[in-house]
């Protein structure tokens, strides 16, 4: 350990300046705006108490909370199940393993907006091959008119990318499960299903929690591009998530106070997830 006093502060200063300017200052500002009300011309503002928070309790914002909850739970559960299933299968393949790893990882690198463009065409109601397939199966497909179909499309698209992320982490986690333990259990006559639930899953526990938190974070916050490309939050708000609602209220409707209140709510959500994550990381450190 070096014992200089000034040098480390100088080394850390650039990072602190950027974090201060673009992280701490905006956070303080959101805090202030959440409790202020500006007049119609945006010229003056006054203390508004909880008025901004009360105005978020309207029908459309409550709907956005419901949509976000459904979207988050479904994408997280499906992406995790798929990612874990594929990781377990790939782990048991021999020489082809690196090829499978590549085949199930690449979708994560596709930019969300471009993934949106691909899927938008795939399920374009008139000429999209996915729509024609569904029409052949007797499904009346038009996600521009049907809320559940629009939400299903956005969920499918998000799972396509997020399952790859989960696959990477579950594959890494499975590396840590000792082959010798599994082999010993097999010789003792423990079946494949019991081996998975009794040995692999407990050892994978911290990875499962970590992946779940990261998936929830991604679903809560990083779905904007996909939604803006494919559905613009519609039809009738059926794919408007909390982040999309904040974009609409803050930028399209220009309601600074409400945007401040909504930002604070997102901060609280993220802080809760951060706390969960931190506990998991700490517990994980104890294992070693």
């Amino acid at each position, binding site marked *: *350990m070096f*014992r*200089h*006093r000034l*040098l*480390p502060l100088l*080394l*850390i200063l650039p*990072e*602190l300046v*950027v*974090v201060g*300017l*673009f*992280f701490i*200052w905006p956070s303080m500002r959101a805090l202030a*705006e959440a409790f202020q009300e500006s007049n119609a011309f945006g010229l003056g503002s006054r203390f508004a108490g909880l008025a901004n928070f009360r105005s978020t309790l309207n029908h459309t914002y409550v709907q956005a909370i419901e949509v976000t909850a459904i979207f988050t739970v479904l994408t997280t559960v499906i992406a995790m199940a798929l990612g874990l299933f*594929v990781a377990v*299968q790939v782990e048991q*393949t021999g020489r*082809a393993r690196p090829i499978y*790893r*590549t*085949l*199930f*990882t*690449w979708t994560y*690198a*596709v*930019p969300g*907006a*471009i993934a949106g*463009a*691909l*899927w*938008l*065409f795939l399920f374009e109601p008139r*000429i*999209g*091959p996915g729509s*024609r397939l569904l029409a052949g199966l007797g499904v009346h497909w038009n996600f521009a008119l049907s809320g559940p179909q629009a939400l299903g499309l956005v969920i499918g698209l998000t799972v*396509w990318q997020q399952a790859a*992320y989960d696959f*990477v*982490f579950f*594959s890494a*986690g499975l590396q*840590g499960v000792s082959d010798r333990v599994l082999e010993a259990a097999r010789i003792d006559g423990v079946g494949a299903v019991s081996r998975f639930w009794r040995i692999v899953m407990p050892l994978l526990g911290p*990875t499962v929690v*970590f992946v779940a938190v990261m998936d929830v*974070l991604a679903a809560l916050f*990083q779905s*904007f*591009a996909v939604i*803006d490309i494919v559905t613009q939050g519609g039809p009738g708000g059926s794919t408007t998530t909390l982040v999309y609602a904040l974009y609409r209220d*803050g930028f399209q409707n220009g309601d600074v106070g409400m945007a401040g209140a*909504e930002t604070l709510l997102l*901060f609280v959500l*993220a802080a809760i997830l951060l706390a969960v994550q931190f506990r998991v990381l700490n517990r*994980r450190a104890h294992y070693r």
Partner: protein
Amino acid sequence: MTRSRFAAASRHGGLIVLAVLFALPLYLAFVVASHSAADLLRGVPIAPGARLGANLRTVFSSSVPGTPSLRTMLVNSAIMAFGIAIFKLALSVPAAYAVSFFRFPGRMLMFWIIFATLMMPIEVRFFPTYEVTADLGLLNTQTGLILPLVASATAVFLLRQFFRAFPLELADAALLDGIGPIRFLTSTVLPLARPILAAIFVLEFIYGWNQYLWPLLITSAPNKVTVVMGIKQIISAAQSFSVPQWDLVMAISLVALVPPVVLIVAMQRWFVRGLTAGID
């Protein structure tokens, strides 16, 4: 023996079917990009056509009418992605070095301030960050595009994890030899940290290239549009034709997804290491 061989064969079969399903949207984009728009009206062909080259030439020379030039958008995307990756490393390496190798008053406080930023992605704080960026006069600038996205400590966190496992005796030996901290950083620490630096670069480049929301807010000038955010205008312009120009949209989509996807496939080891370094 035959039973386990059957199990292995069905496992491969299942995985191949899944991999094909995963690849289907990309394959169809390729098929569409290699036909003319009119070919698609009767349904998407199964096999690729012969017009990929022609469509690529069209989008590179004239783009879709009413949208920014593809070259400009690609250059903007590259500046943003390289800018974010380079700035991230330039800021986080000294910061992580300071909190890992120095004992100084306020060290833990510094670390906690940085750590607090860890899980607040730009999507959480975009509204007030936009206001601050506007107040600083950084709308429609590369600085405004890059710096707010660099303001998170993911890289500091990854580097600290790496530095924690670093033998501190090396630092003590350097002290005894009269080697100063800066020379120790450049001559010993950085060469050993090359794998984690590569991992951070790959992660941050992909992160920067794939940004959508932030460039959408910060840039209004057509010559500042990145290709990922530009795709929305391109789609709506292409759909305004009597025959929707999906062939051109897909050609541009392919061009836009090649850099991050090729990077992830080519550098998969670094990417996986960087992604999972935080937890194992």
